[in-house]
């Protein structure tokens, strides 16, 4: 929980004067202040951390727009809300994109879409060349032994989306290996 006794405005004034210690304290306190706000609105811990990082970077970029004479919290929350909406907008547009693909693919997916039919080590070089999301999914499923459901929970995606991403990755790998 955020400490009510923290004087954010004073810390920001000191930070604007170049006090690194005050700035670090301010950013830490701000992340403590904003974390519960994000936890309520986001789905996974990773997402909360990602958005919180975005917000702290934005606070850093916009710190010249705070003069220390007005309350700090509305200023910080305005930035947090702005970045959160940005994130949700891109998240939902990604999901929508995936959803269309899932509709198209779901019926044609084989039952054993995630079944391990190869030695991961033998193709790990090719896996690393895949887009980051696909590489992460294959690594988790075939190197670390997670099921598609567990991967979905860990990276905050739907199970069907994980399966589709894995299916696409296999297709790319198959094409590469058959060449």
């Amino acid at each position, binding site marked *: 929980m955020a400490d009510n006794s923290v004087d954010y405005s004073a810390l920001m004034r000191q*930070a*604007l*004067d*170049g*006090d*690194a*210690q005050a*700035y*670090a304290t301010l*950013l*830490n306190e701000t*992340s403590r202040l904003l974390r519960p706000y994000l936890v309520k609105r986001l789905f996974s811990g990773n997402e909360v*951390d990602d958005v*919180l*990082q975005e917000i*702290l*970077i*934005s606070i*850093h*970029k*916009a*710190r*010249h*727009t*705070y*003069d*220390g004479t*007005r*309350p700090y919290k*509305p*200023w910080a*929350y*305005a*930035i947090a*809300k*702005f970045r959160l909406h940005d994130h949700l907008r891109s998240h939902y547009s990604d999901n929508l994109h995936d959803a269309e693909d899932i509709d198209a693919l779901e019926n044609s997916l084989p039952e054993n879409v995630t079944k391990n039919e190869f030695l991961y080590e033998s193709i790990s070089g090719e896996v690393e060349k895949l887009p980051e999301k696909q590489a992460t999914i294959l690594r988790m499923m075939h190197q670390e032994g997670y099921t598609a459901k567990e991967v979905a929970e860990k990276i905050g995606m739907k199970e069907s989306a994980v399966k589709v991403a894995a299916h696409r990755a296999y297709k790319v790998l198959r094409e590469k290996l058959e060449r």
Partner: protein
Amino acid sequence: MENIEQLVATLSKDVTPVKSAPHPYVLSLKWLAIASAYLIVSFAFSGFRPDLANAMQNPWFVAELVLLFVLFITTAIAAAVLSFPDMHQKRNMAYGPLWVAGLFVLMILFAWLADSPSTPLPMHSLACTVSIILFSLPPFVATFYALRKLASTHLRLSSSIAVLFALSTGAIWERLHEQNDSIIHVIEWHYLPILACSVLGLWLGKKLLKW
């Protein structure tokens, strides 16, 4: 959590003193002063409409000019306020131009009803729209340049209001320069294009003011 700690360490490590952005009122005064100087210099070259003294006898023309100036001032203040993430905690100022614009529309409507029999339309048409837009380009560029240095969290509204500020400069110049009393012409070729450009400004904000 580790990432957050690392990020905080990185951001705070090389922090240097930062000069705070000017208060939005100071910022808007600066913009108004520059735009006014631009108007004065332009009138020095182009001159006022020859029948300005006569036109000032028409209360609707005076009301239109007064509201245009009020719009010019309130849009400058609102654009400055909106360029701060928290609107400098002056929410009412940010939405001020919407009230003025509403009043302006009402006034134009009454002026139109009062224009009976209708004043003859001038020979030109699109030339006015083009003049207003071209005249408004320098204030548009200068305002957006200033806005990009700040951090608006209302990109669309901020941009639309800034466009309205620039175009109100152009509209003032056109009304005081062009010899025309037809309210229909003014609605059709001055104010409707300004409204359209302000709507375009909503889209422009996402492109130009992103940070």
